[in-house]
């Protein structure tokens, strides 16, 4: 698993290198769409909080698996239809480090 993760992390870095457009889209997706259950500030709702503090003792690979495959028996869906696995890794990494705020255009 660890080797797989390292591979995925490398892919995530590749995704990172592709530029900020997709990352911005992922940030928006987490804030807005994940936010419908976890809260836009990720402080929790029907889903648990996803703040840095709340995730402090969670291993990265279990976060990635939860994002990508979902958690059976709970409302958490697998997001594999929406994300690549590398993107799930990227999101998990951002979450444990404190998820970035969405960049919003001035109105």
């Amino acid at each position, binding site marked *: 698993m660890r080797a797989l993760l390292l591979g995925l992390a490398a892919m995530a870095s590749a995704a990172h290198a592709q530029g900020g457009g997709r990352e911005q889209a992922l940030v928006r997706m987490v804030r*807005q*769409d994940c*936010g*419908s*259950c976890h*809260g*836009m*500030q990720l*402080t*929790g*709702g*029907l889903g648990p909080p996803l703040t840095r503090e709340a995730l402090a003792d969670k291993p990265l690979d279990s976060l990635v698996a939860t994002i990508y495959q*979902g958690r059976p028996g709970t*409302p958490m*869906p*697998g*997001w594999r*239809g*929406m994300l690549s696995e590398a993107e799930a890794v990227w999101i998990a990494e951002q979450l444990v480090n404190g998820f970035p705020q*969405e960049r*919003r255009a001035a*109105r």
Partner: protein
Amino acid sequence: MNRLDRRHLLGWAGAAPAAALLGTLPAAAQAATAASPTGTGDLGVVIERARGTLALVNTSSRTLLAEIEGLGDLSHASVVFSRDAGTAYVFGRDGGLSKVNLLSRRVEARVMQAGNSIGGSISQDGSLVVAQNYTPGGIKVFDAKTLELVADIPAEVAPGKLSRVVGLRDLPGQRFIFSLFDADAIWMVDLSDRSKPRVSKLEGIGRQPYDALITPDGRHYIAGLFGEDGLALVDLWDEVPTARRILGGYGRGEQALPVYKMPHLKGWAVAGRHAWLPAIGRHEVLVVDTATWQEVGRVAVAGQPVFVMARPDGRQVWVNFALPDYHLVQVIDTVSRQVIKTLEPGKAVLHMEFTPRGEAVWISSRDANRVSVIDTQGFETLARLDIDAPSGVFFTSRAARLGF
């Protein structure tokens, strides 16, 4: 026409857009307008999700009147209205409960009543406002005038263990009903004596109730179940109400799709004698006969339904969807049970609200930063309002409707 007259006319024409612009001025600049006597029946509010503001709108002129700030995290906000339809109570995700005067456009009172909140209700007589909370799990009852705490009812299902509360609805007789997501239960609370709330409980109603609706007559409470195929029904006119399962096994044992967004049941999806309900994890709307509570049909739709809402006359049912199909809205004709129209009003449709008598529907498109006003007969777009990341749309006509 001579030149002078013409210039005069042009002058008037030039003045018209200036008057229209008034609608976009900040609240302070409109104090004079706000102070003049006016009704509230064609007012409404739209949640600006990201900015934590409330957009005040007029549903007759289809204009944005003002924006009211300082309401906290509104990422899953909902609103109920006072009986005089002059006050909006705004329940924020962060547990903030705000009382907003729609005429003065000011926040008159605000309390932080929980850590994580999911909405609220107002009592039959308008004297009590109740919030339903995830953290701490339970409901809190407030005086509608002052927002002073009247009762705190934790959803304690085992010593020290609280359940998240969903599906709170008002019932006749100063009563409320709600579901416990973590405890597979439905509780009712009677607040006719506000100093002595009386709680009655129904256990084992089905796995993971996620939201609920009350029929327009206040008789039937229906909780959607996430943890199983089916819904829980309570007939509140029974001497001793019980919960029974309806539509058991509607998924026919097939693997449900991943649910990227929970359906919402608030919004009467009762049209005539039928209830129209979202199927969980399926691209279907279920049709149920409210006399027998048997399924009488199902309509295939473009995605997983989130809101299934009947136009006030019940002739149409409008449906929006979870992502990835949330750029679509579909209209079902309730007589033929056919999808008669598919609309694309803008990406990330989060909510719909009918005008009081249903000639138009307002649809919020979060990612398009737009609310579209659409004619429900011809489906043409009557107006578009620029509103930042709009989510819930709430019109004051809710003030007079049970369950809203």
